[in-house]
């Protein structure tokens, strides 16, 4: 088991390297660039000063040597500072991380919890009205464009009905609230972003659990479990359920990049002060060090998610644990 985890960790290193390399090249080859966006609009800047600026930030060097510089600094945990406000990248990312983690972990938990419940009900009550209702719901949930849903919910629930805050993570007077008020305020801000970020995954996971469960129920060991005289409940929720969860674990690990990608969109729509919005803002201003900081953090989170999934998988499946 220890060897297995160690192997996974070692494998993560080249992946991390690859992700940062590719991102670095893509953002540096994107038309525009830092000086074009941030200086050329200003009539006071001369070509000369642009050149000096490029030299100052090392942007005049070939991209590959810029990457080598960046990599050399980064492995000593020096992510540099923002071109825009000159604050250390590490600080900028770190202050945005909790908001993103809060939203994504809650969303994952919701997706997993309700996805498994819906999927299992659907499989156990196959071909009944309940199953059909769940199927319709998942079909809608899966095919609905989520950014559109976000806007519709904001319009009707928040703007028209005034039931929930429109955007942001906390209200302006948050600092003056008592603790229960603070929690309530945070939760009310969480509702819409959570619905929007969970609904697609929920639909997807529940379909997945359903097919896993149906598959497990057709296995010989389920018949053998009945033949032993186990009750239907035990067979369903002990013998079969565990088997049907195996593919879900892998899927959860794989869904981390999607969540991070989704954060770019939803954090921007809901003005959620997380990493996704930071990435969006820095991408617009070609703030290379910050973009790279966010990307690296995203890659690390993805790899951590995969590692967690691998460990969970091994914990559930003895065929992996005792290879």
């Amino acid at each position, binding site marked *: 088991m220890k060897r297995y985890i160690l192997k996974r960790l070692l494998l993560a290193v080249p992946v991390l390297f690859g992700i940062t390399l590719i991102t670095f090249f893509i953002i540096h080859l994107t038309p525009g660039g830092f000086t074009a966006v941030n200086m050329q609009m200003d009539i006071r800047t001369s070509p000369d000063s642009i050149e000096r600026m490029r030299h100052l930030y090392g942007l005049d060097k070939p991209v590959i040597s810029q990457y080598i510089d960046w990599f050399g600094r980064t492995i000593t945990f020096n992510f540099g500072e923002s071109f825009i406000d000159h604050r250390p990248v590490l600080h900028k990312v770190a202050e945005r991380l909790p908001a993103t983690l809060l939203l994504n972990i809650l969303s994952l938990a919701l997706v997993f919890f309700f996805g498994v419940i819906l999927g299992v009900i659907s499989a156990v009550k196959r071909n009944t009205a309940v199953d059909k209702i769940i199927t319709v719901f998942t079909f809608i949930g899966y095919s609905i464009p989520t950014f559109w849903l976000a806007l519709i919910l904001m319009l009707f629930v928040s703007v028209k009905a005034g039931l929930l805050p429109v955007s942001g993570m906390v209200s302006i007077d948050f600092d003056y609230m008592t603790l229960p008020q603070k929690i309530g305020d945070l939760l009310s801000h969480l509702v819409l972003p959570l619905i929007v970020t969970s609904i697609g995954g929920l639909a997807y996971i529940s379909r997945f659990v359903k097919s896993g469960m149906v598959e497990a129920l057709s296995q*010989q060991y389920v018949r053998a479990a009945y033949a032993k*005289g186990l009750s239907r409940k035990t067979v369903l929720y002990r013998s079969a359920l565990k088997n049907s969860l195996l593919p879900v674990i892998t899927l959860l690990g794989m869904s981390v990049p999607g969540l991070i990608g989704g954060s770019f969109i939803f954090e921007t729509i809901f003005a959620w002060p997380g990493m996704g919005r930071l990435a969006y803002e820095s991408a617009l201003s070609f703030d290379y060090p910050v973009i790279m900081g966010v990307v690296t953090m995203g890659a690390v989170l993805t790899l951590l998610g995969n590692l967690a999934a691998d460990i969970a998988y091994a914990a559930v*499946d003895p065929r992996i644990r005792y290879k």
Partner: protein
Amino acid sequence: MDIINVSNLYVKYAARKKYNMAVNGVSLDIKEGESAAIAGESGCGKSTLASALLKLLPENAQVSGNVMLDGIDVFAAGEEQLRKIRGNTAGMIFQDPGASLNPLFSVKQQIEEAITAHFGKTEKEELKRKSLELLSDAGITDAQRVYNSYPHQLSGGLQQRVMAAIALSCGPKILIADEPTTALDVTVQAQIVELLKKLKEEHKLTLLLITHDLHLANALASRIIVMYAGKIAEDGAVKSAKTALHPYTAALFKIIPSLDSPKRHFEVIPGEVASAEHNGNFCAFSPRCPYADDRCRSEKPELKEVKPGHFVRCFYPGGKK
């Protein structure tokens, strides 16, 4: 007293707007302590019959008829009574032990869940003692290691021994073994046959063996029930092709090499296996039977007692001399 009593059993499977008949009117009595084997080619309905005994049929199966196990009406039983029948009255082992054990649970968990299902919550120490005893009883010498193993860490033979231990964990009177050796190596097959013999003696079991191998059937059972197209073709003590009274049984003996034969070719009886669907007025075996004549092709033979305790569904038992 008959411990297994099947009367007029019909089982059909729903498949895309039609039905596949699998068991087509089987009646059968097995006495307590008897060892019987149900034999026949693939698809003749052996497993369906065995599953029906414990009401273990898949959802798309439709049954009619009656099954009594140790005096209990199986098809009329509720969930709790069914749980008792499965495990307490009859234990079952299956063809592929690797697929019959749940890959995610240890042997310990799978044997102990069977015990607790029938005896309720039991002390940990007691559970362990009992499990180890059952495993050793099933001929496992390093029971302690097997007890702590997961199915994938065991060989096929050991897996089948574990299945046998589980099947016998609640002291059933009947053991139903559906092709218990088919998925195993030849050498291991012989060991499992020995094990079943031993268990049968020690636990005074009524054994119902399902197999397509008549030699195996004879090694374990004193009574052979041969099925063809969902019906019983012959039922009695049939030791060899010579004592077989139904031409199909005789043909079955010829195609299967004996257990110790050096050549274990796969041979088949020429002609196509008849499906249980057929309801025409002719003998289902007539297209493949060397003795078939006009009568066989225009009339349906019934199961008749030809000798005491020996039933045959054929107009010309023993073939035309």
